[in-house]
């Protein structure tokens, strides 16, 4: 009897014991800092002024959302970078996935080679491309001159439009492989019988693509785009190395502006408020993502 009672008890505390190490750590390093950050965002803690702080309520939030042209500009910049990047990544990724799905020989090795950019750090990707775009020693200007396409060295980061374009290019280079892998997995899970049946009914390959591949790939594409969208809101390392937000503040993303507010201006409370505005945005996107996933599971 005693043994049975002990077993019951053991059963109750064991799951907690097993889960506790990571839960305690998550509490200490994620949950508590988030709460502390929220508390911070309601004060005016500014390390460039001093260690004193007062309660200011929602002042920081009001400043961020209504009165800070730099932050609002960075929201716009982030959107301007995200939109073309997502389109390019989706289209290129889909194209590559379709090509790869046709390949019978050497698919694993080609896929692995194409996937490498997605594995490297954004910082390293940006550094490599920053050197490629280098004015005097960069591969692109040199190639252009050698082929006679440009006469003079061209400054790729000189104007707002070009700077954004280069950021989009590097981001596309960096993360198209991710989209390719996701879509390739999606394409491979479409049963071959569907194509065979369509063929027997006299459908052309083009019709097969439009009426079988695309409809069945819809949710995979949505999931891939959502993951990229959420990750793109955190764009930081790439900007830090490639443009450092320049020229002016034309390529500053929300994460980068928050970093500058916190670690260049040392306005800790204000940066905390900015980060909470970002978290709010990401939370909305995450809920959207989970809704899409549920929708997909319901269909599957």
């Amino acid at each position, binding site marked *: 009897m005693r043994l049975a009672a002990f077993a019951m008890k053991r059963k109750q505390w064991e799951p907690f014991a097993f889960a506790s190490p*990571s839960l305690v750590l998550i509490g200490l390093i994620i949950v508590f800092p988030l709460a502390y950050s929220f508390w911070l965002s309601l004060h005016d803690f500014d390390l460039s002024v001093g260690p004193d702080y007062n309660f200011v309520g929602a002042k920081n939030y009001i400043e961020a959302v209504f009165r800070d042209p730099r932050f609002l500009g960075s929201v716009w910049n982030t959107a301007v970078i995200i939109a073309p990047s997502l389109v390019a990544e989706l289209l290129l990724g889909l194209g590559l996935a379709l090509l790869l799905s046709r390949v019978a020989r050497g698919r694993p090795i080609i896929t692995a080679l194409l996937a490498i950019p997605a594995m490297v750090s954004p910082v390293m990707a940006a550094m490599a491309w920053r050197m490629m775009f280098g004015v005097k020693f960069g591969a692109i200007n040199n190639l252009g001159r050698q082929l006679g396409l440009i006469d003079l060295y061209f400054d790729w980061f000189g104007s707002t439009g070009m700077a954004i374009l280069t950021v989009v290019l590097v981001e596309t280079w960096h993360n198209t492989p991710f989209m390719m892998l996701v879509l390739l997995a999606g394409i491979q899970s479409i049963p071959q019988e569907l*194509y065979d049946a369509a063929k027997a009914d006299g459908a052309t390959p083009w019709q097969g693509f439009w009426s079988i591949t695309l409809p069945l790939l819809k949710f995979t594409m949505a999931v891939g785009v959502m993951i990229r969208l959420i990750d793109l809101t955190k764009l930081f390392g790439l900007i*830090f190395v490639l443009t450092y937000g320049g020229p002016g503040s034309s390529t500053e993303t929300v994460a980068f502006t928050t*970093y500058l507010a916190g670690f260049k201006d040392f306005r800790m409370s204000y940066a905390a408020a900015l980060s909470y505005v970002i978290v709010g945005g990401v939370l909305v996107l995450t809920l959207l993502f989970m809704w899409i996933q549920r929708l997909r599971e319901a269909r599957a």
Partner: protein
Amino acid sequence: MAIERGTPRGTPVGWAPPVPRGANSTGRPRVASRRVNRYRAQRVVADVLTYFGLLVALLFFLGPFFWILTTSLKGNEDFFAFPPVWIPADPSLAHYVALFTRSSGARYFTNSLVISTLSMFAALVVSLPTAYAIARWRFGGGFLSTFLLVLRMLPAIALIIPIYIMYKMFGMTNSYLGLVVVYTVLYVPFAVWLLVGFLREFPVEIEEAAMIDGCSRLRALVQVIVPIIAPGMAVVALFAFIATWNEFLFAVVLTGIETKTMMVLVTSFTSGGTDMFYGEASASVVLGVLPAFAVAFVLQRYLVKGLALGGTKG
């Protein structure tokens, strides 16, 4: 989950050859064979275009790496040469030597290795029991898994400000420990997620047999389950290694002169505008992307799963 497929693995999806030569069922041999010929010609053209497209893609996606590698092996005079030197005539490791001595690259490379290795092991040790609790007892129900997903989506920028202030208070900036703790915790959601998958596939009977023989649950986990799911754990570990190796935001804020990682070292070369120290900068990029290359080949099969869950994003 697995979808029964009518064709063997590796068969191109889309438009397989319709009718094998000489084996048509239409009963109209001449027309069919003409059609077969047309299909074969179309297929050859399509195959050529496919491989050509992939070749262009490979050039675009791997070209920068090739250029960085050759640049890191060039002599200084090659940078100024026109027409440009694409492949150095006499490659030298001078820039790597300069990186390791003049820019203390050896120290920062070691920092990256130590921090990534420690975080990798710590993340595994912390995540495994939690994953076990979720897989065997459905601990936390749907709430915990949703919570972990939300954590994965959480922007790091929201954590860096409070953590920086906390670390300043406790004097934990500029230390291995501080960075390893953050990386471990950031990686737990991902590691738990993957490990739960491996553990669910593990037959309960084996560990129950071990426990009937007098093994405690923890011992069963460590001595019976771990050796069997070791390949899966290796996958998680390698992704953890890459993620911490690649992480930048926490590294740039929390490290000081002694604890910088490779990612932070690389940014120090940008101070010269777009025409910086090309030699050392390119050498550091080569070293910085090395693990990614290694892991991409080892983990081919797991790339989708790992990348989709944010395996390489710290």
